């Protein structure tokens, strides 16, 4: 089945130790997104790629970086995780593009714990 896959599902990292979360998709969608979601809050968009074009949200900390080496894969790098970065990280895709209203397809998320 075509889908959005996130690995790992649970990640524990130490304060200040770099961590990478990964996302892959078999939908061949143009757009890939990374969201941060904390308990009882709306998913917060960190950034998205439209093909290779990177779009950073103005309030996304510099501590968060992303890479999209090809259509299928997208990575979220947290350079120096703090305790406040503990959250669920959701990857999503959509067909995207002007005039192409399309719902997003989400992965199951990666639960990040910072010790």
């Amino acid at each position, binding site marked *: 089945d075509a889908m959005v896959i996130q690995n790992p599902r649970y990640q524990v990292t130490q304060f200040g130790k770099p961590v990478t979360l990964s996302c892959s998709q078999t939908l061949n969608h143009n757009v890939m997104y990374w969201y941060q979601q904390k308990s009882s809050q*709306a*998913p917060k968009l960190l950034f998205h790629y439209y093909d290779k074009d990177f779009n950073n949200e103005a309030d996304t900390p510099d501590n968060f970086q992303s890479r999209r080496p090809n259509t299928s894969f997208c990575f979220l790098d947290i350079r120096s995780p703090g305790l406040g970065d503990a959250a669920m990280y959701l990857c999503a895709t959509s067909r995207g593009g002007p005039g192409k209203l399309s719902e997003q*397809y*989400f992965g*199951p998320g990666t639960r990040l714990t910072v010790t």
Partner: protein
Amino acid sequence: DQQVKQNSPSLSVQEGRISILNCDYTNSMFDYFLWYKKYPAEGPTFLISISSIKDKNEDGRFTVFLNKSAKHLSLHIVPSQPGDSAVYFCAAIGDNFNKFYFGSGTKLNVKP
């Protein structure tokens, strides 16, 4: 500043009755609205959507109503089933079709 708001964090309904989940937005430029459903340990899944040129869209037990003048939309589930118990997120898209704005979610509990 949150542009999409779900002011009820939770809702409890008896099986067979109607569930009504509400969502308010502030940006009159939003063109398209969506509802997502999320079970624990899973990502949100798309449920139903509505374009700003319509005021109602129905899909089986699920109906979304849009009141543009009030900047309000609602999701009706009739009849509610225990399997509908989940967190429901409202989302909106503006002129940038790639950017989705989400509400904070409403946790629905349907009691048998």
